[in-house]
């Protein structure tokens, strides 16, 4: 009785945890919003079949039990790629179960959804029975030890069977925490929290037995395995020889576990439907495999220990209980029993919720909606109906499981039932996985593939199981039905020597995939199927979410009425952002219709939601062409986007260039204005004095001759200045328009430079400038216009003279060879020219502004000398630039001319 008390006390604890989880969820402080809890909830994969059966399987089939966990390890490694896509699709389409998923993929087909639900019900109920059986059996072992627990279930009345009561308590639990909300997308947070807790309990319990066995019953793993190695009967127990089917069986079981992990309804429930955040997948993708590793690490030691100890251990499926019992312990066996109980109950809870959702949404609701019997008078009545259907379904599923367990449970070992269910679930894999990646897969192919796979599964695994239970004449196993040998269930088409699961998996999947692909290739999809296929295969496409799929017409009022009737006021308020009914006569926008359909799908499944929406929306329901063209042009759009981005970058660059060019233009314009003002001033000054003196000369006839001569000198001088200025302006105009006539000829730059310097020498001396000349070359032959080059040199020296230091003015002229060029450098010891200003001195009208003394503030020339010089030099093939003066420290203007081609001596 104490055992029962503890067991039901444990179930009571689950109620508390689930209630707490639900309360926290309502407060918005979710318990399950962590990747660790998510990974633990996935561990619902480890059922009583793992907890008790792994040891049994290790004892009989060596390391093959590990395959059941290596397959899911592979699947979880793919989680960030594969399961993430499933989660994305499920949240976009408000998927409620794997049947709903497959039905939605193939055009929201209610028949396909019903088919999946039916197969799941038939394939999985034995698995639920297995959990109940494990509970009964472990209780019997615990209570009856050391007598063997070989009681016959059928001999006992059901009220003595503990598993009946456990099933009943579980039904209450599931009804309380599994059907609180109608909307599956609201998730069962309390239930998930309880499942995660149960995963911890079973891990701790199993590890405890493992540590006890290895370190208490034996002196560590070394001792244990030394004794195993010394026992000849156990020598081959751990090798591949013990695995049924050898290498082929190995691969078959690996594939089977991989597929079943993704397609078992309870795994789909926790992996996809109950996922709260797809980022949790990253952590879970390694944490869950780690959990599997941990719960399996002591399986082999326990199995070996049980076999070493022989009779006192009894049935290998019960080693985890009998080993601590044989040592006379009390507490540990109880912990183990609780661990097994938690493994069994967690599986039953999740599986029953998943199956009941399928039954209500895929089997019962479509029938009710179709028959039109469902007369819904008042608002929100359907919600009550739906929850009622689910509750009844939960009770029936558990009852079915119990009946299965009570009637034929004795004839199956734990492992057998598990793999039979796995193979049934694996039939969903082709429709699910191929449908997610191949847009062409269609409903007809998926349905026929599923039916064929299911029939082959039934023929090769289910019926032989019944036969072995004594329900059928086992003769057909050996001879085949009516003596047809190639139809033998364990050797279809004469394929013999394989283990029965790999054999069944091979043929069922070959038929399933073959029909799915073959029929899809040779039949057409309906428009809705095409759209759904595109939405599923392109689920990761970022632009998809915003796309509105509805094009039909209805009013807001009709839509509101529909939601009100089926989902109740709360859900309606959530869909309609504004509560007032004033706009009910207006047409409903497509986005609103989509939201309404999603809300219905979250409660009723996508097929029923589609039927209901179609009942109020008139016209073409789907803008198929639009969605397909969006998806077809995915890559095109991306490419166009990329090019657009490139173009806009170029545009930005171009506009930046334009902006700076514009700035330069403004600057030039400003300079030009200044220059015009300055030139006018410069022109006016000589003109004014010429005019003034001319007027004096004209008016005053009696001026002394001396004064008259002086005045005339002034007039002549000013006229010269005026014509020089005009000459410069004309030069500049010619340079700019390209009409400057040059007269290139071979000339010696040394001679020309000396000649030019002689011309300015006196002038510079008068200014007090110390002009040094450093010409070390004998000759420097270049091609140029002698007059123009001389003009340039004079200009450079004159210019340098203006900018020398006030106290000790110095100018240095150097002529030297640089590779095949000659450079004439004119340095001064003035303030120099700042780096940024150096190119601008060659701008027309540019005047260097001096930050220093005011005396230098006035421009010292027209500002045309350097631009003209540069224009001339450039026309002659040379360059003119500014650099730091290496000797005097001021500015240094360098003129570079290319060396003339080798000259014939007679020309010189």
């Amino acid at each position, binding site marked *: 009785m104490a055992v029962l008390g503890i067991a039901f006390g444990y179930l009571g604890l689950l109620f508390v945890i689930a209630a707490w989880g639900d309360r926290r969820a309502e407060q918005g402080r979710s318990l399950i919003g962590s990747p660790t809890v998510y990974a633990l909830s996935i561990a619902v994969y480890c059922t009583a079949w793992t907890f008790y059966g792994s040891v049994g399987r290790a004892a009989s089939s060596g390391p093959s039990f590990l395959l059941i966990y290596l397959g899911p*390890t592979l699947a979880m*490694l793919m989680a960030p*790629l594969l399961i993430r896509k499933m989660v994305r699709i499920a949240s976009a389409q408000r998927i409620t179960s794997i049947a709903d998923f497959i039905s939605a993929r193939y055009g929201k087909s209610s028949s396909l959804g019903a088919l999946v639900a039916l197969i799941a019900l038939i394939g999985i109920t034995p698995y639920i029975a297995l959990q109940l059986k494990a509970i009964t059996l472990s209780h019997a072992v615990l209570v009856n030890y050391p007598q063997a627990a070989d009681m016959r279930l059928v001999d006992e009345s059901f009220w003595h069977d503990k598993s009946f009561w456990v099933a009943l308590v579980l039904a209450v639990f599931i009804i309380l925490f599994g059907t609180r909300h109608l909307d599956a997308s609201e998730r069962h947070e309390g239930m998930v929290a309880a499942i995660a807790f149960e995963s911890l309990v079973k891990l701790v319990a199993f590890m405890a037995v493992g540590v006890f066995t290895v370190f208490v019953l034996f002196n560590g793993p070394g001792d244990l395995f030394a004794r195993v190695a010394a026992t000849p009967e156990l020598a081959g127990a*751990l*090798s*591949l020889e013990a695995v049924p089917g050898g290498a082929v069986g190995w691969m078959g079981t*690996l594939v089977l576990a991989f597929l079943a992990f993704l397609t078992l309804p309870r795994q789909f429930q926790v992996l996809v439907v109950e996922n709260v955040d797809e980022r949790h997948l990253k952590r879970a993708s390694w944490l869950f495999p780690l959990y599997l*590793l941990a719960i399996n690490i002591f399986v*082999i030691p326990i199995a070996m220990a049980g076999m070493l100890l022989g009779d006192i251990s009894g049935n290998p499926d019960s080693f985890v209980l009998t080993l601590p019992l044989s040592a006379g312990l009390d507490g540990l066996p109880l912990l183990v029993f609780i661990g097994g109980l938690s493994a069994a109950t967690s599986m039953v809870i999740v599986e029953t919720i998943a199956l009941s959702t399928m039954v209500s949404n895929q089997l019962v609701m479509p029938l009710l909606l179709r028959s039109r019997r469902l007369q819904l008078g008042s608002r929100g009545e359907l919600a009550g109906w739906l929850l009622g259907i689910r509750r009844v379904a939960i009770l029936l599923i558990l009852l079915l499981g119990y009946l299965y367990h009570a009637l034929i449970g004795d004839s199956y070992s734990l492992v057998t039932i598990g793999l039979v269910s796995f193979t049934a679930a694996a039939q969903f894999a082709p429709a699910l996985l191929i449908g997610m990646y191949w847009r062409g897969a269609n409903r007809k192919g998926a349905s026929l593939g599923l039916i064929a796979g299911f029939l082959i599964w039934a023929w090769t695994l289910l019926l032989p199981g019944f036969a072995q239970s004594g329900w059928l004449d086992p003769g057909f196993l050996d001879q085949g039905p009516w003596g047809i040998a190639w139809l033998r269930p364990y050797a279809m088409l004469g394929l013999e020597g394989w283990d029965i699961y790999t054999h069944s998996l091979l043929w069922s999947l070959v038929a399933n995939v073959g029909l799915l692909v073959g029929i899809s290739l040779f039949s057409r999809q309906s428009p809705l199927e095409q759209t759904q296929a595109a939405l599923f295969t392109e689920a990761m496409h970022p632009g998809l979410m915003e796309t509105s799929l509805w094009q039909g017409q209805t009013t807001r009022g009709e839509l509101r009425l529909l939601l009100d009737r089926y989902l109740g006021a709360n859900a309606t308020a959530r869909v309609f952002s504004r509560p007032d009914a004033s706009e009910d006569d207006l047409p409903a926008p497509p986005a609103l219709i989509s939201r309404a359909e999603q809300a219905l799908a979250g409660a009723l499944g996508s097929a029923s939601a589609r039927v209901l929406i179609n009942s109020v929306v008139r016209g073409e329901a789907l803008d198929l062409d639009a969605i397909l063209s969006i998806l077809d042009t995915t890559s095109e759009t991306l490419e166009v986007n990329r090019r657009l981005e490139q173009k806009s970058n170029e545009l930005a660059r171009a506009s930046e260039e334009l902006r700076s060019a514009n700035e330069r233009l403004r600057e030039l314009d400003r300079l030009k204005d200044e220059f015009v003002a300055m030139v006018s001033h410069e022109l006016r000054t000589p003109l004014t004095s010429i005019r003034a003196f001319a007027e004096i000369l004209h008016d005053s006839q009696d001026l002394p001759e001396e004064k008259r001569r002086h005045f005339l000198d002034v007039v002549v001088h000013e006229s010269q200045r005026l014509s020089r200025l005009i000459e410069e302006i004309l030069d500049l105009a010619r340079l700019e328009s390209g009409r400057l006539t040059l007269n290139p000829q071979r000339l010696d730059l040394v001679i020309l430079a000396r000649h030019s310097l002689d011309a300015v020498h006196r002038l510079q001396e008068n200014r007090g400038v110390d002009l040094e000349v450093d010409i070390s070359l004998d000759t420097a032959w270049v091609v140029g216009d002698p007059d123009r080059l001389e003009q340039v040199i004079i200009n450079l020296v004159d210019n340098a003279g203006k900018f020398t230091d006030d106290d000790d003015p110095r100018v240095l002229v150097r002529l030297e060879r640089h590779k095949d060029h000659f450079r004439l450098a004119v340095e001064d010891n003035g303030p120099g020219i700042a780096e940024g200003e150096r190119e601008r001195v060659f701008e027309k009208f540019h005047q260097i502004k001096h930050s220093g003394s005011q005396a230098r503030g006035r421009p010292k020339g027209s500002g045309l000398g350097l631009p003209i010089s540069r224009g001339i030099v450039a026309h002659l093939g040379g360059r003119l630039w500014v650099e730091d003066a290496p000797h005097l420290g001021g500015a240094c203007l360098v003129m570079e001319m290319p060396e003339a081609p080798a000259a014939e001596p007679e020309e010189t």
Partner: protein
Amino acid sequence: MTSPRIKERLIALILLALVLFSPPLILMMDRNPEAGLSRLPLYLFLAWALVIALAAWLMERQSGK
């Protein structure tokens, strides 16, 4: 998981796991010295742990950034 490099590394890891858990290597590991037990389970657990460690490294390093 947006970076294609992560995706490539993950696919490589899945393929590695598949090779480690499949027959050619399994058969090699099963070939044990005359006496004693098969080393297969030990090998499987080590390979399994390696795969999990690599996956943890790949996933956590990336989410840490």
